[in-house]
């Protein structure tokens, strides 16, 4: 605790400084269980007659399965059931199908073609773990070994092996149009032509295993009423529940999932596939079944943070201003999609880092290779590209002979700047971070750099969306037919232009489909400040909801805060004035609830009766 330093001198007027918890030691609510060894991790549930599951796994990066012979395993002592791929009711899924994103590409047990080392093929259930291991060792799988690809750029070559037949181009397909995620802002070619220096760099990061101390696993057991209880180490209980229901083709009301105590996850337990196998095993044997990775499996098969490779090309002026930045990024998503498709969208939204650069272009590819499927880990989608950007900033500083911290302060985004994904930057603090870091590290910066602030110098011209050059390069299927360059703007396709001030794709809120999906503050109890309850927001119950219409964005000259220094300072004061009386107000039991528990300090959601 003591190592945390609060710099309350920064942005003091933006903060309502009545923090009740931050900066004060608090005892974790779950720590008593931790120090007494009583916290219920999934494996801390004892069942009579618990059976153990082990998987037969592919020893090859890429191989077609000709046949699977489990007859010897069936006869091994203690074996209660051998689960073959055809025993899985609906043996194809992708995690994000639950939010309708991406095609089903991964089998729970693979029976046709394995695409990475360790891919599960057959699951053995036996009375002891040892017996399950011994039986797994005698399963005979006849493989036809295929050529494999382990490098993201090699996977994009026209003659590269096809990793997953769902995605024959070895890339995830974005918007059913492109084999990569595009970002275009301004005209990087024009920027490069104007620039005094061009600085290029190539950066890459290996896969990183989350390596939680508790390995991934689940225990499933039959419950009454034809239900199954499942204790799991998952970090995402409803992902696990939905995935299990889909793979096993059973209603989720039959599944009773219990999680919440996780022995370290760090992202690696978001897309675990233990629950469906454990529940299937329990269903087929009628007994409690445990499926847990051992440490070797956790390291080999447990989905890591995916590898990334980034090419960055900057156009820089002699004074250090970066006028154009171009990215070509490759995410190694392994053999199946899992969460990588989403990581790319997240990473693209992050470009070009916390800097105001007038011309930005990026092509980011989610590439399939014959490596372990990648998944979430602590800021995935951001970490690799941030590492690349900051390495590149140092390289730029060297190229123009500038202090690297001053270079960052010069190019840092400020309040009111337009970011490349067409959102205004708010509450920026990079300049202040650089200044504090420089003083802590005794790194001298010029008086001019030390005097900068995020609150001033932004907005105005910097808030404009420039005229943007677009292109059609990299349409799905194009890359395999004829080798085309991966970098933005280098494709042969025709180029277009989007007028200044236009967001390329308007974002329209999805209209609520049912009456009870409307967030009504009077019903949900969300306190709203007076400022938020402006008459512009229609009251749902008094007026019918109009279908959302796209209104063209206001021209950039008018849109952002007119006098850049004044606006960001004035706004927070206004807000603070509006919020503060609400926070200080005593609790009023009469509103907003008509029913339920209304005592101060007691959750309003434990009334036991359904409101409305």
């Amino acid at each position, binding site marked *: 605790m003591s190592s945390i330093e609060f710099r309350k001198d920064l942005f003091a007027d933006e903060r309502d400084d009545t923090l009740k918890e931050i900066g004060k030691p608090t005892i974790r609510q779950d*720590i008593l269980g931790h120090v007494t060894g009583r*916290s219920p991790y999934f494996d801390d549930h004892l069942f009579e007659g618990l059976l153990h599951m082990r998987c037969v796994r592919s020893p090859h990066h890429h191989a077609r399965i000709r046949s699977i012979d489990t007859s010897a395993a069936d006869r091994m002592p203690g074996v209660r059931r051998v689960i073959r791929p055809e025993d899985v009711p609906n043996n194809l899924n992708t995690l994000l199908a639950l939010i309708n994103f991406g095609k089903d590409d991964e089998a729970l047990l693979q029976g046709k073609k394995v695409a990475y080392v360790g891919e599960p093929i057959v699951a053995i259930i036996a009375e002891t773990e040892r017996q399950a291991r011994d039986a797994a060792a005698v399963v005979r799988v006849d493989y036809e070994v295929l050529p494999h690809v382990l490098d993201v750029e090699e996977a994009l070559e026209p003659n590269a092996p096809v990793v997953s037949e769902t995605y024959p181009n070895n890339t995830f397909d974005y918007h059913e149009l492109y084999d990569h995620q595009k970002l275009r802002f301004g005209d990087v070619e024009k920027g490069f032509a104007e620039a005094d220096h061009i600085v290029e760099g190539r950066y890459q990061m290996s896969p990183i295993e989350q390596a*939680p*101390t*508790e390995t991934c696993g689940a225990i499933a057991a039959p419950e009454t009423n034809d239900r199954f209880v499942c204790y799991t180490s998952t970090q995402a209980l409803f992902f696990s529940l939905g995935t299990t229901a889909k793979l096993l083709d059973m209603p989720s009301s039959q599944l009773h999932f219990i999680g919440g105590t996780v022995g370290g996850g760090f992202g690696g337990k978001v897309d675990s596939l233990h629950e469906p196998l454990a529940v299937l095993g329990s269903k087929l044997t009628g007994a409690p079944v445990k499926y847990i990775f051992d440490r070797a499996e956790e390291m080999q098969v447990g989905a890591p943070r995916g590898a990334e490779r980034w090419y960055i090309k900057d156009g820089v002026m002699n004074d250090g201003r970066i006028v154009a930045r171009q990215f070509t990024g490759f995410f190694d998503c392994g053999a199946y999609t899992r969460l990588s498709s989403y990581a790319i969208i997240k990473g693209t939204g992050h470009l070009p880092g916390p800097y105001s650069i007038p011309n930005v272009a990026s092509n980011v590819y989610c590439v399939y290779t014959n490596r372990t499927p990648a998944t979430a880990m602590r800021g995935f989608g951001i970490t690799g590209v941030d590492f690349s950007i900051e390495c590149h900033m140092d390289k730029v500083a060297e190229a123009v002979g500038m202090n690297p911290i001053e270079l960052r302060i010069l190019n840092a985004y400020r309040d009111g700047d337009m970011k490349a994904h067409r959102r205004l930057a708010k509450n920026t603090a990079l300049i202040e971070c650089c200044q504090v870091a420089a003083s802590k590290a005794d790194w001298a910066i010029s008086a001019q750099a030390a005097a900068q602030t995020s609150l001033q110098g932004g907005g105005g011209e910097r808030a404009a969306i420039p005229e943007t050059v677009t292109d059609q390069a990299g349409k799905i299927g194009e890359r395999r037919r004829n080798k085309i360059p991966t970098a933005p703007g280098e494709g042969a396709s025709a180029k277009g232009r989007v007028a200044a001030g236009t967001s390329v794709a308007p974002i329209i809120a999805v209209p609520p489909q049912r009456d009870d999906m409307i967030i009504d503050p009077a019903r949900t109890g969300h306190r709203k400040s007076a400022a938020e309850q402006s008459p512009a927001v229609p009251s749902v119950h008094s007026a019918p909801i109009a279908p959302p219409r796209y209104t063209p964005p206001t021209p950039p000259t008018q849109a952002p805060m007119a006098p850049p220094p004044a606006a960001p300072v004035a706004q927070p004061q206004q807000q603070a004035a509006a919020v503060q009386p609400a926070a200080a107000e005593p609790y009023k039991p009469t509103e907003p609830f008509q029913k339920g528990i209304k005592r101060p300090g007691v959750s309003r959601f434990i009334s036991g009766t359904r409101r409305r």
Partner: protein
Amino acid sequence: MAKTPVRFTLNGSETALFVDGGANLLDTLRRGVGDLSPKYGCGQGTCGTCTVLIDGEPHLSCLTLAETVEGRSIETTGGLSNGADLHPLQRVFMENFGAQCGYCTPGMLMAAKALLAKNPNPSREEVVEAISGNICRCTGYEPIIDAILATAGQMRGRVA
């Protein structure tokens, strides 16, 4: 498979059961006796979450054959508190934020207890050495080290 009878003292109480040949102490404690406080982390003696005290010495229960503890005294985190009264180590771990996911905590507590029993006034380096076999993947080592040093201070104060 032939079963072997084993008798030992677990947290002060006499315990006897039959174990399979080759069964390790971790499984025996967890599944056989039902003391779930030692955890499985790696099964190969590298992570330290399964640390228990055998006659006061820290041992990795995943690498200890259950048959070898015949007649010996075993202590686990499950027996560290005296009913609702927490051991000073447990209390100070709570106050010092010495656990995040909590999975390594039982092993850490055992390693710390063994250290403080032998060396009531350890230096920071000695604490680091004592828990060097225990991995905290949440990387919360600093509060753990602080907690062990603070406990040592408190226990010395109480004795004196």
